[in-house]
């Protein structure tokens, strides 16, 4: 035994402390937290790539996995958005500006932003699937000249379920972004000015050209399934379509053994995959 003698212990499970700088209520059950590192050196030195995720923790309650929803181009802080569904997210939702939480990360791979340069980008998000895309959207917008057309198709069950409403308004106003927002039939309000219809339906109506285009999509599994079908109809190949998967995670580091889909560990080999990769996976999701 003793293949390797450890001289200085690394505690890979030890989180960094982060202070909540801002709390934004996105929907009745969804919040965004802006966090900055307590440790000043980390505040300066922390880097990540769009698509990566982390383990956020409330001390005394536990850890929870979400993507980093802010752009790596925005230094000094990170943001996460989450829906209050379980034990940790409920505790997180109860916190306020100034409270301290734990963060481990960044983990996982990232969107192939270098490959996307010089291409049209079509973002397709559904519901709480927008946060991982948001990181990349802002990343692209902050380097706007490096990309061609940027189109965002975002849908939610109802108007109330749309996240990042302020940013949606901003993107709508920007001449260099084409935003299409939609809500499921019945989810509209009298003053709703967007589309009404499921995301795949609207997508087929938009009929984007597959030429020189990358699609990045994230949303509920059922939406992804039909979006992939629609993209197929529109002539997109599976290598042009990128998605980010999620599964129950604990360590985020390929050790705890629960996020695998067949033989692929989402935390370590993902969470970003092309549609071609997803189609090759074991039907274990």
């Amino acid at each position, binding site marked *: *035994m*003793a*293949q*390797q*003698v*450890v001289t200085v*212990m*690394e*505690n*890979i*499970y*030890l*989180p960094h*402390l982060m202070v909540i700088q801002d709390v934004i209520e996105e929907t009745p059950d969804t919040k965004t937290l802006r966090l900055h590192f307590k440790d000043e050196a980390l505040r300066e030195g922390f880097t990540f790539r769009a698509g990566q995720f982390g383990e956020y*923790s*409330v*001390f*005394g*309650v*536990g*850890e929870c996995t979400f993507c980093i929803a802010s752009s790596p181009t925005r230094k000094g802080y990170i943001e996460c958005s989450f829906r209050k*569904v*379980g034990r940790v*997210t409920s505790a997180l939702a109860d916190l306020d500006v*100034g*409270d*301290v939480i*734990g963060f481990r990360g960044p983990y996982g791979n990232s969107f192939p932003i270098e490959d996307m340069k010089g291409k049209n980008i079509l973002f397709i998000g559904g519901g709480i699937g927008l946060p991982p895309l948001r990181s990349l959207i802002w990343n692209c917008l902050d380097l706007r000249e490096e990309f061609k057309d940027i189109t965002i198709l975002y849908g939610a069950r109802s108007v109330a379920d749309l996240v990042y409403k302020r940013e949606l308004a901003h993107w709508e106003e920007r001449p260099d972004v084409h935003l299409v927002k939609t809500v499921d039939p019945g989810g509209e309000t009298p003053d709703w000015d967007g589309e009404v219809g499921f995301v795949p339906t609207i997508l087929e109506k938009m009929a984007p050209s597959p030429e020189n285009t990358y699609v990045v999509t994230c949303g509920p*599994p059922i939406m992804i399934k039909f979006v992939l079908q629609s993209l197929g109809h529109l002539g997109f190949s599976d290598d042009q379509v990128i998605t980010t998967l*999620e*599964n*129950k995670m*604990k*360590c985020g*580091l*390929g*050790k*705890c*053994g*629960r996020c*695998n*889909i*067949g*033989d692929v560990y989402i935390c*370590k080999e993902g969470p970003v995959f092309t549609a071609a990769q997803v189609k*090759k*996976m*074991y*039907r*274990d*999701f």
Partner: protein
Amino acid sequence: MIIKRNDLKRLVEDLIGQGKRVIAPIMRMGLVEYGEIGSFDDITWDYINPRNSFKEFLFPQTEAIARYRIGKKDVELEGVIPELRETIVLGSRPCDAASTASLRSVFTWGAEEDPSRFRDDFYLMREGVTTVMTIACLKGDEDCFCTTVGLTPESPEGSDILLKETVRGNFAVTPVTERGKAFVEEWRDYITDEREDLKEIEYPEVLEGIDTGKIGARLSDVDVFDDPVWQEVARKCIGCGACTFSCPTCHCFDIVDEATGYEGERRKNWDACQFEYFTLHASGHNPRDTQFKRWRNRFLCKFHIYPTKFTSTGCVGCGRCIRVCPVALDIREVMEWLSR
């Protein structure tokens, strides 16, 4: 080299006297299990394989990884450094010793690229203070199948020192690793250069009709994963964690917080892919929502994920999952099916 039984006793008593932790098979509640001994006489010699593997001394079932105090607007956080005691596992079996390669490969997966991120030092540091003195098995029981998965009752893999019983009841000593050599050097006074005849080692029968290479190849086929036979083979599975917790290579864990009032610990606890809640999302979705899917995952992990990702064996043929299963679900039956 030979160590006489009485000298082994002196050696063990000396190790204990030096404050070292000696783990050996002991009898507790009618079961032979690996446990810390207080004296040489605690050791049980009449055993095939203890009910637990010794992985719990490298990767404890529950351990604190961080401690904290929660203040009004602040948190004091401190990482836990495991208390290390030099440990000697005496009387390990070759299958268990071989299993440490699997644990190590998971707990260091990715460490080549980034040790500060992917090296689980809780495991690695314990391993670093552990010397494994394996005693070759004289025979197996009807559930041992090491020879079917490429090991033998006298395989040296994973051991620092391999002992083989002699006809006079002493042990022939073979150092395997550098650590083992150093250990033998340190205790050279207790070891003689005599030669004694070894007791005969009876190998478990290699099970005909089982071919781990073929199993791996078939599991690489996504369609085999969808075969309805999985449902049949695992129908009786009750979804407990007896097999995974007894298994020397199972490594899954949970991370939980336990706090009372304003202070608490974050702990790393064994978990099992057989549990319904293991993969349950907070949204209510569960990718492995029925028991056969969970059982299939465990099998896939052992015979496909490990061999393809970690280049080490995920199953060492110790037979514990068979012995311990309350519904006699025998992994060999599934291995046989997939060898066809």
